[in-house]
C-alpha cells in the first residue's frame, strides 16, 4: 500500500469525480426523457441547462478528477511516496479545482451559464462561469507541475535510471494536457473574461472557436491516455502476462503527444473563414494518430495472446478462452477496448474532410463520443475503481462485488449499445445533436426520428441504473468491504524485450517537436484570422 497521505490525495480526487459522475448522470437520464418527448421538465429547468451540467460535469470534471486521482496513486506506487513539495502542490491544485467545479455548478444551476460545455461565443455566460473554468484549469496545471516535480526529483535522486513506465506515461499525459489547455486558457482569459465582465464590447468568434478546438481535440486524448496506461501497464499484470515492450509503449505515448495536439480544424471543417487547404492539412495530421492507436492495439492483443499461450492455450484463437473474463478488473477495460474498435472507425469518418458534411452536428457525433469517452474511457475507469478504491482504503474486492461489477459492465455495455447505436443511425438520417424535443412542426422526416430517440431513452435508463450500481459498489468498497490487502497491479516487461532507448526520455526534444508542429499547423491560418477578422460580436443571452 502507498503512503496514507498520498492515498488521501488520490481519494480526494476520486470522491469529487464520483459526485460529478452522479449529478451528471441524473442530468443525462432526464435529457433522454425530454428529448424523446416522454416528460417535460418541472420548476422551469431548461433542457439546455441540463445539457450544460451534463457536459461540464462528465466531460470535464469527472474525467479530469478521476485521471488525476489515478495518476497520483500510480506515481506514488511506482516512484515511491510523493516528496513534500509535489504533494503540497497537488493539494493546492485539488482545492483550486474543487472550488472552480463548485462555482461552475452553482452558476449552471442558477441558469446563468446555459452555454453548454463548449461555450461558443457570442453566447455569453456570467463571468463567474468562465472564472470557475479558469480555476479548474489552473488547478490542474498545479497538479501537472507537481507530478513533473516528483518525476524530476526522482530522476535526479536515482542517478538517471530509466523512469517507471507508469510514471513516464503520467508525465506525458500531463504534458499533453498542459499544452492543450494553453489554448483554453488563452481564449478564456484573453477573450471571454474581459468580454463577459464588460471591459471590452466585442469578441472575435472564429479565434475563440479555433482556440477552443485547439484544446478540444487533444482533450479526447487526455481522456484516452490514462485508459491506455491501464491497458499497457495494469492489464498485463491482471491477466498474468507481461508488458509486450516498454520501448514501444513509450514510443506510442510520444507519438500521441506529437500527433494529437496540432489538430483542431477537423472540428471546424464546415465553417467559413478557414481555407480548405489548411483544413485538409490538419486532416492529414489528425489521421497520424492512427499510427500510435494501431501500435496500442497490437501491443494489447500481443499481451493477451502470449499470456494465453503461457497458460497452455492452443489453436489460433484458443487464448481468448483462457483470459480472465470473470475478473471485473479485466472484463470492464476489455469491453472498453473492444468498443474502441467501432469508436475509432467512427472517428476516422468524422475527421475525413468532406465526409464530415454528412454527420456534422448530428446525433451521430453524440453517439460517437459516447462510444469513446463514455464507453472506452469510462469502462476502463470503472475497471480501475474496482481495485483502486480498495487499494487506497485498505480493503478488498469481495467476490460478490466482483460479480456486481461484471453485471455493471454488462449493463453499461448494453445500455450504451442501444443508446449510441440509435444515435448513430438517426444521426445518419440527419437528426441534429444538442436539440430538445421537436418534430419541426410535424415534418414527416423529424417525426420518423422519434422512435430512435425513444430507444435513446431506453438505453439511457439502463445506463443510469448501471451508474446507481456503480455508486453502490464504490461506496461498499470504500467503507464496508472487509479490511485486507489488494495490490496496485503494475505489469513487468517481457524478459527478452529490447531495452528502452534513452531518447524516449528526452523531454526537451519531444516538447520541442510538438511546439514546432503546432506552429506549422496554426501560424498561417491563425494569422489570417487576425488580419482578415470581421468586426467582433457583442454578447447574447438567448436562454
Amino acid at each position: 500500500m502507498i503512503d496514507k497521505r498520498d492515498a488521501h490525495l488520490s481519494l480526494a480526487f476520486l470522491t469529487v469525480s464520483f459526485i460529478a459522475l452522479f449529478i451528471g448522470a441524473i442530468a443525462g437520464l432526464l435529457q433522454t426523457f425530454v428529448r424523446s418527448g416522454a416528460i417535460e421538465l418541472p420548476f422551469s429547468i431548461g433542457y439546455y441547462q441540463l445539457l450544460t451540467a451534463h457536459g461540464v460535469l462528465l466531460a470535464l470534471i469527472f474525467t479530469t478528477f478521476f485521471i488525476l486521482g489515478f495518476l497520483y496513486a500510480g506515481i506514488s506506487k511506482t516512484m515511491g511516496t510523493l516528496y513534500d513539495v509535489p504533494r503540497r502542490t497537488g493539494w493546492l491544485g485539488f482545492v483550486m479545482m474543487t472550488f472552480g467545479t463548485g462555482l461552475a455548478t452553482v452558476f449552471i444551476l442558477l441558469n446563468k451559464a446555459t452555454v453548454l460545455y463548449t461555450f461558443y461565443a457570442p453566447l455569453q455566460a456570467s463571468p463567474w462561469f468562465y472564472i470557475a473554468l479558469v480555476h479548474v484549469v489552473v488547478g490542474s496545471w498545479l497538479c501537472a507541475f507537481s507530478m513533473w516535480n516528483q518525476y524530476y526529483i526522482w530522476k535526479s535522486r536515482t542517478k538517471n535510471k530509466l523512469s517507471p513506465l507508469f510514471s513516464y506515461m503520467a508525465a506525458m499525459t500531463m504534458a499533453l494536457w498542459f499544452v492543450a489547455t494553453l489554448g483554453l486558457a488563452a481564449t478564456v482569459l484573453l477573450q471571454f473574461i474581459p468580454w463577459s465582465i464588460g471591459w471590452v464590447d466585442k469578441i472575435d468568434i472564429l479565434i475563440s472557436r479555433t482556440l477552443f478546438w485547439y484544446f478540444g481535440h487533444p482533450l479526447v486524448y487526455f481522456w484516452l491516455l490514462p485508459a491506455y496506461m491501464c491497458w499497457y501497464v495494469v492489464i498485463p499484470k491482471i491477466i498474468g502476462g507481461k508488458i509486450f515492450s516498454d520501448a514501444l509503449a513509450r514510443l506510442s505515448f510520444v507519438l500521441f503527444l506529437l500527433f494529437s495536439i496540432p489538430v483542431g480544424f477537423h472540428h471546424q471543417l464546415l465553417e467559413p473563414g478557414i481555407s480548405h487547404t489548411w483544413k485538409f492539412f490538419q486532416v492529414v495530421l489528425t489521421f497520424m494518430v492512427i499510427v500510435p492507436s494501431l501500435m496500442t492495439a497490437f501491443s494489447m492483443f500481443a499481451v493477451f495472446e502470449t499470456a494465453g499461450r503461457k497458460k497452455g492455450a492452443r489453436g489460433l484463437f484458443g487464448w481468448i478462452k483462457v483470459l480472465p473474463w470473470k475478473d471485473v478488473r479485466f472484463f470492464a477495460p476489455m469491453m472498453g477496448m473492444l468498443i474502441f474498435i467501432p469508436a475509432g472507425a467512427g472517428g476516422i469518418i468524422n475527421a475525413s474532410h468532406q465526409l464530415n458534411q454528412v454527420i456534422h452536428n448530428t446525433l451521430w457525433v453524440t453517439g460517437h463520443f459516447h462510444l469513446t469517452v463514455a464507453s472506452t474511457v469510462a469502462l476502463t475507469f470503472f475497471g480501475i475503481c474496482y481495485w483502486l478504491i480498495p487499494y487506497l482504503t485498505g480493503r478488498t474486492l469481495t467476490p460478490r462485488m466482483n460479480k456486481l461489477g461484471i453485471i455493471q459492465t454488462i449493463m453499461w455495455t448494453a445500455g450504451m449499445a442501444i443508446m449510441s447505436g440509435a444515435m448513430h443511425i438517426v444521426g445518419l438520417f440527419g437528426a441534429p445533436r444538442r436539440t430538445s424535443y421537436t418534430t419541426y412542426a410535424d415534418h414527416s422526416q423529424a417525426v420518423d426520428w422519434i422512435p430512435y430517440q425513444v430507444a435513446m431513452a431506453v438505453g439511457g435508463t439502463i445506463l443510469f441504473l448501471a451508474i446507481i450500481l456503480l455508486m453502490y459498489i464504490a461506496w461498499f468498497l470504500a467503507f464496508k468491504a472487509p479490511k485486507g490487502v489488494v495490490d496496485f497491479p503494475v505489469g513487468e516487461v517481457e524478459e527478452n524485450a529490447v531495452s528502452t532507448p534513452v531518447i524516449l526520455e528526452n523531454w526537451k526534444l519531444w516538447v520541442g517537436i510538438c511546439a514546432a508542429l503546432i506552429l506549422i499547423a496554426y501560424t498561417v491560418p491563425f494569422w489570417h484570422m487576425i488580419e482578415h477578422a470581421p468586426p467582433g460580436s457583442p454578447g447574447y443571452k438567448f436562454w
Partner: protein
Amino acid sequence: MHIHRYEKIWLWSGAVCLTLFLLIVGVSAFAMGNQPPSHMETIDPEKAVTTPPFDNPGFTKVGEKEYEAVMLAQAFTYTPSKMSVPKGSTVHFKVTSTDVVHGFEIPSTNVNMMITPGYVSEISYTFTKPGKYLILCNEYCGAGHQVMAVTLEVTA
C-alpha cells in the same frame, strides 16, 4: 529500435490504409472539388441586415433551373421562410448570422455548414427529388433552438 516482425507487418498495413484513405479524401477534395464549405468573405454581423445582399434576403431565379437563396439566420428562424423550386434545380445558398452561431443543415442531403456571425457561408445543391425539404439549425443557439427551421419545397 527493434520491432517485432508481426508488428512491422501490422504497422505497414496500417500505414498503407492510412495513405490510401488520405489519397481518396485528397483526390476527392482537390481533383473532384468536393471541398467542405470554406468561404472567406467577412461582414459586420451587427450591420448584416443593412449590408447587401443581406439587406434584401430572398429567393431569386438566376438562370435556367438555377436559384440563389440569400438567407439570414437569427434566433430562432431563417429568412426567407418559404422557398419553392421545380425538380432538378440548383440552389446557391448564401447565408449569414445576425447574432450567434447557427447551423444550416438539410437532412438527407449533403448540405451542412456552420453560420458564424461575421462570415458569409455558401453552399450549392441540386434537388433531384421532389418533396418538402427541412432546413434546420443544428448548432445550439439558445432556448428556442429546437424550433429553428424552415422548409424548401421541390415541386415535381
